[in-house]
């Protein structure tokens, strides 16, 4: 996909990957030996349990104790028998022995308090396990069918060339988002991302139904996913290219959102290994357990994940912290590979956030972007536009976005998030989006193939800086490999925020496996089979 230009020493690159694997190993072990309430709920969702005690509710209408059925059931199992062996055995044992018609009826009776869960043994356990596996396999074949459907549509409608133009909608109202998203596609977007409502990542349940009341974004719900995917399918046919839909598998419900994304054929999901920990104060153990499951689902669904390294540069200095981006990318890559994601599914994130007043800032950006390109030659890198140094001077901001687009073109980035000159000031006007796309089109048209002619001098500024960032990354990785990733996060290594392993939200939802833990979803995903 790209040829080496920076003269990186392959032994240093290999050492960086080896250290990332060492640092990740204990965390992967943690994820393999623990479950969470959300992993268990996701398993029930794969088995077909959807809906809520109240047919439609969003985060703001949930004061009266309404909740999704999956929460009802998992909480009841947890209270009665614990989650150490998973929900599958007690739930399907109750289903088979209690005369309930299906999971929904079981959930309703659970809510009414008339279901006693117990852990089956012997033949009962085998029977329950088989039934659970069948039910979960049905959900996974739906995910498989959705993936095949995407492949067919991409082939029939055509795949836009990279870089994919990535635009955001965020009205809070799904019925307002849809026409905006369709307009964005007609203006040239290849990827539409629907930003979530502020704070959804901290809800320990997934809201239900079509929602119209988000704050600065729209709730991620299965119904909203379905509506938006259908609308984008329509406009994809109209413009003659397959338009990808993006949402967020992050926060406390990461595994469940991943399942819903797979069921509704979303194409890309924000899914970082550390974002929730650092920027949302979600417990590190919870995050790592949840993300392994969610990534296995993404791998199966053919979904491209987008990681969030760009965020580090909005809190820390983009030059000083450049190597932390590379470290996080290598960790994200390792966790992703372990969960079964292919290189083509790794939309590793980075950003154009260096202070433009700094001398040679453009050359520094080129060095960082080219370094990432060469470290991950087969990944569709996601390049994020400037946000920190967008001051409200929209004219200067427009120029800065132009330079961002230029660096994106010169370094062959795969996904280009379109920068808005009104970034951080107002919600983009229709005209801001149009101007931004004109900017992208001009730069890609004028300089799209400049990568071919971009040959940094072997010992010039760009190549030297790239090698320096890589060696700083190796240095930091070796420290993390020695001290452990959890302590490194606790010390504020990433994004300057300190997050102890036992702090943050959601720790009480983490449960260590006991002997005999059974989760058919994990088995089927790890084995990569469908029955």
């Amino acid at each position, binding site marked *: 996909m790209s040829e080496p230009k920076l003269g990186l020493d392959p032994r240093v690159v290999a050492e960086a990957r080896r250290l990332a694997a060492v640092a990740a190993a204990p965390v992967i072990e943690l994820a393999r030996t623990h479950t969470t309430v959300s992993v268990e709920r996701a398993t029930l969702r794969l088995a077909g349990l959807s809906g809520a005690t109240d047919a439609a509710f969003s985060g703001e209408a949930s004061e009266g104790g309404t909740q999704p059925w999956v929460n009802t059931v998992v909480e009841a199992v947890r209270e009665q028998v614990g989650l150490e062996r998973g929900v599958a055995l007690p739930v399907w044992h109750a289903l088979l022995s209690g005369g309930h018609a299906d999971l929904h009826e079981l959930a309703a009776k659970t809510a009414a308090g008339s279901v006693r869960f117990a852990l089956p043994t012997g033949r009962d356990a085998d029977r329950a396990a088989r039934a659970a596996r069948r039910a979960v396999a049905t959900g996974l074949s739906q995910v498989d069918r959705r993936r095949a459907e995407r492949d067919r549509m991409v082939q029939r409608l055509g795949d836009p060339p990279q870089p994919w133009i990535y635009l955001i909608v965020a009205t809070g109202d799904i019925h307002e988002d849809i026409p905006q998203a369709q307009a964005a596609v007609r203006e040239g977007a290849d990827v539409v991302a629907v930003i979530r409502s502020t704070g959804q990542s901290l809800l320990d349940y997934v809201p239900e139904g079509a929602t119209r009341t988000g704050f600065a974004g729209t709730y991620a719900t299965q119904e909203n996913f379905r509506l938006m995917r259908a609308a984008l399918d329509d406009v994809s046919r109209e413009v003659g290219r397959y338009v990808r839909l993006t949402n967020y598998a992050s926060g406390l419900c990461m595994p469940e959102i991943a399942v819903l994304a797979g069921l509704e054929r979303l194409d890309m999901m924000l899914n970082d290994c550390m974002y929730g920990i650092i920027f949302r*104060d979600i417990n590190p153990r919870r995050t790592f357990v949840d993300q392994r499951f969610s990534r296995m689902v993404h791998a199966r669904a053919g979904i491209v994940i987008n990681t969030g390294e760009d965020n580090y540069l909005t809190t820390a200095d983009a030059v000083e912290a450049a190597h932390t981006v590379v470290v996080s990318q290598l960790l994200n890559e390792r966790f992703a590979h372990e969960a079964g994601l292919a290189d083509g599914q790794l939309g590793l994130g980075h950003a154009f956030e260096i202070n433009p007043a700094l001398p040679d800032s453009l050359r520094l950006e080129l060095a960082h972007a080219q370094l990432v390109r060469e470290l991950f030659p087969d990944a569709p890198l996601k390049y994020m536009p400037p946000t920190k140094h967008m001051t409200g001077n929209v004219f200067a901001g427009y120029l800065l976005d132009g330079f961002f687009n230029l660096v994106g073109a010169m370094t062959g980035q795969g996904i280009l998030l379109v920068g808005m000159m009104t970034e951080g000031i107002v919600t983009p006007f229709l*005209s801001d989006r*149009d101007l931004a796309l004109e900017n992208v089109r001009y730069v890609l048209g004028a300089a799209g193939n400049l990568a071919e002619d971009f040959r940094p001098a072997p010992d010039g500024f760009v190549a030297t800086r790239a090698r320096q960032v890589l060696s700083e990354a190796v240095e930091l990785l070796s420290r993390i490999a020695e001290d452990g990733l959890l302590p490194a996060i606790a010390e504020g290594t990433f994004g300057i925020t300190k997050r102890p392993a036992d702090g943050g*939200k959601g720790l009480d939802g983490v449960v260590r496996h006991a002997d005999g833990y059974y989760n058919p979803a994990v088995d089927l995903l790890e084995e990569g089979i469908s029955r």
Partner: protein
Amino acid sequence: MTTVDDRTDRATGLRASAHDADNPRASARQKIVRPYGDTTGDGMVQLSFTLPVPNDSRAEGAALQLAGKMGLDPAMVVHAKGMGPSFTFFVVYGRVNHLVDLSTVEVVEREYPLLAAREVNLAIRQVLRRKLVVLGACIGTDAHTVGIDAILNVKGFAGEKGLEYYREIKVVNLGAQVLVPDLVARARAEKADAILVSQVVTQKDAHLHNTRELASAVRAASWPRPGRPLLVVGGPRFEPVAAAQLGVDRVFGRGTTPGEVASYLAYALRSGWDR
């Protein structure tokens, strides 16, 4: 109207001498001004806007009509671009006939100045010589942590980083449904300088009752440091004028950003709050 125009022309119009215009002392004395394009008193402005009309022969006229009603005379559409079938984007230059009377400009007085993060950090270092400890929570039955998290979490809100981002602020976020006695006990243990409470649920005025309960508990408790912690509440249904009535130091309403809260804390520190 003509009188005002005449005065303007004397003060800022074309007849004003080049010497005066270049002299900052002279311009400081001016009371009436108008926009400056390339010549004193020309009144020239640029603006851009979108109308929900197709870019056809009527579009430019529509833009000129709006510009005229906005006081641009003459106005010139220098750019019109159709965006899809039903919208057109315009860039317009023109001369406005409006005048700005500097003597009647009212400065909206927030009691505190908005500071950048580094200025807040500096204020804390100068006054306290240690970190400022901020304890945050949703109290009572309120499970909606959206507000307090938007203010405290690094992620922040409206493009501003939360208080965790400030190097000189130590944030302890207790999350949802914290009981007032627990909050006070924790504030004592952490030697909190400020307590931030967010309330979203307003059924039966729960937010007001909870806030008063907190205020009296904080006043009744004994504190490890002189005085008591600063009490700040916020939420979409609070009236910022109600602070005294609720027994708290500051109330923030809907749309408050972390930077505003941090700036207020720095301001309160500098003015030596109730300690």
